[in-house]
């Protein structure tokens, strides 16, 4: 058997013999640093595969962890997206609340500044479903609201109460075609009538062509309509055109009628008290309740735009319709 093996494979035997002796030498030989050659060879022989194995394992581990990381990242991404949606919703809600807080703060400030005025805060709960420009409030007859009471915001006049129900009230906005208010120019104190046109802008009528009116001039309530307290902001002149017999003045409402949320209702009783105070200070006498018709007439006049040649309500006799 040995004969056959050695005859057939002397090269293999030679290789083994040489390898054995080389290893034997490596065991005996020491490097200058004291390490045996066999140890150096073993390290050099085993280090590359170990390094390659470590590299492969690192890559595999990295790929695996990366894959797992991707799955986790996807889940986390979905969760974060959901959180982001909720946060956005929450943010919008908080922004809405902040805006509401700011509006309420402005209302409160306005209310405090007019502590003697009979103001009733109300929330706009709906808008007119028809073509008219009206809104509904969450306050009604039970809260003391009556028809033709003024509705205002800290920015300016909104309109007047048109219809009153038990718990709600309908407010006719200034911009409605049938709406109007006694007005005066803040600079010249010239009086006129602000009328709704069905458009965002009001029309200030009954201002003579002799009167100097410039765009940007403020328009206030004159109080002559006996609905709106005097000197409340009505709007700002945006356009002035000469016309016959009066100027045609377009006014942008001071109150943002398209963004109404909270308003004040000026209770009518206080209105008359306010006018009485005005009368005590040399202002017109407060009118009895029955005189509301005069104001109503003025409003009606403003609403219908009748007799453009007629003088403003304040200049007319009280018995003149």
């Amino acid at each position, binding site marked *: 058997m040995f004969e056959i*093996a*050695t*005859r057939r494979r*002397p090269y293999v*035997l*030679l290789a083994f*013999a*040489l390898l*054995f*002796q*080389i290893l*034997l*030498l*490596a065991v*005996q*030989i020491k490097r200058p640093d004291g390490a045996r*050659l066999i140890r150096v060879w073993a390290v050099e022989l085993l280090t590359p595969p170990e390094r390659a194995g470590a590299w492969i394992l690192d890559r595999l581990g990295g790929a695996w962890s990366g894959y797992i990381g991707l799955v986790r990242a996807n889940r986390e991404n979905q969760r974060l997206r959901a959180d982001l949606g909720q946060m956005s919703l929450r943010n919008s809600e908080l922004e809405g609340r902040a805006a509401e807080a700011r509006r309420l703060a402005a209302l409160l400030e306005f209310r405090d500044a007019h502590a003697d005025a009979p103001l009733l805060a109300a929330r706009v709960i709906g808008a007119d479903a028809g073509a008219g420009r009206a809104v509904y409030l969450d306050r009604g007859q039970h809260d003391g609201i009556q028809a033709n009471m003024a509705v205002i915001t800290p920015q300016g006049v909104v309109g007047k109460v048109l219809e009153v129900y038990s718990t709600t009230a309908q407010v006719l906005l200034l911009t409605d075609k049938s709406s109007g208010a006694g007005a005066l120019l803040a600079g010249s104190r010239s009086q006129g009538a602000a009328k709704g046109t069905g458009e965002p802008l009001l029309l200030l009528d009954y201002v003579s062509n002799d009167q100097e009116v410039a765009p940007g001039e403020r328009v206030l309530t004159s109080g002559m309509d006996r609905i709106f307290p005097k000197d409340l902001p009505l709007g700002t002149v945006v356009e002035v055109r000469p016309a016959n017999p009066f100027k045609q003045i377009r006014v942008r409402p001071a109150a943002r009628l398209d963004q109404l949320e909270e308003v004040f209702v000026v209770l009518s009783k206080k209105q008359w008290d306010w006018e009485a105070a005005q009368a005590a200070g040399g202002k017109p006498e407060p009118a009895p309740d029955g005189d509301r018709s005069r104001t109503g007439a003025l409003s009606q006049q403003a609403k219908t735009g009748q007799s453009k040649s007629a003088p403003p309500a304040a200049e007319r006799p009280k018995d003149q319709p």
Partner: protein
Amino acid sequence: MNPAEIAENASAPPLLIRGVVEPRLEVHKFRPGAVVGACFFALVLQAFVPAKVWKGEIVGDLLELPLLVTLYFGLSRRNPARGLLLGMVVGMLQDGLCGASGANPIGLFGIALTLVGYLASTIGARLDVEHPASRVVLAFAFFYFHRLAYVLTNRWLLAQNIPWMNGRLLAASLVTAVLAWPLFALLDKLRQDED
């Protein structure tokens, strides 16, 4: 026994060299213990004679008896496996004896003599090495082959810059080659098939 008779009696198939069938060369057998004894004496002489008998004389450094013994049995037995194993054992023993004086780690001469034994067996299986002149030439050539293997191994593993050749080595190669003639003739007496 002529070559034709040897070829007829051989159990192994004839050797093929470049497609030519050559008559099989004789594979010599030796008396029991002859190989071991010859190698033992060669090692003893190699290790102790230079140190004890020819102490300090150049002739002691020129002896390469283990090389000659390995070469002789490799050429005679013509078996590469046996030749390389014999060379390995003799070389490692020589390393061991030299290692006693701190010269060689075990394996340096072992590798060199392993290669010598293998190559000698391979050559002996293909050439007739019975002629004294060819033996001298082969001994001279194998001295440098042995030296080449030794120096390469030494430089590779031990990083020792030992010389390839110098005058002493040249003298040693000539002494070895000349010594091969009577030594091989003496060893021929140990052949069993010639009794």
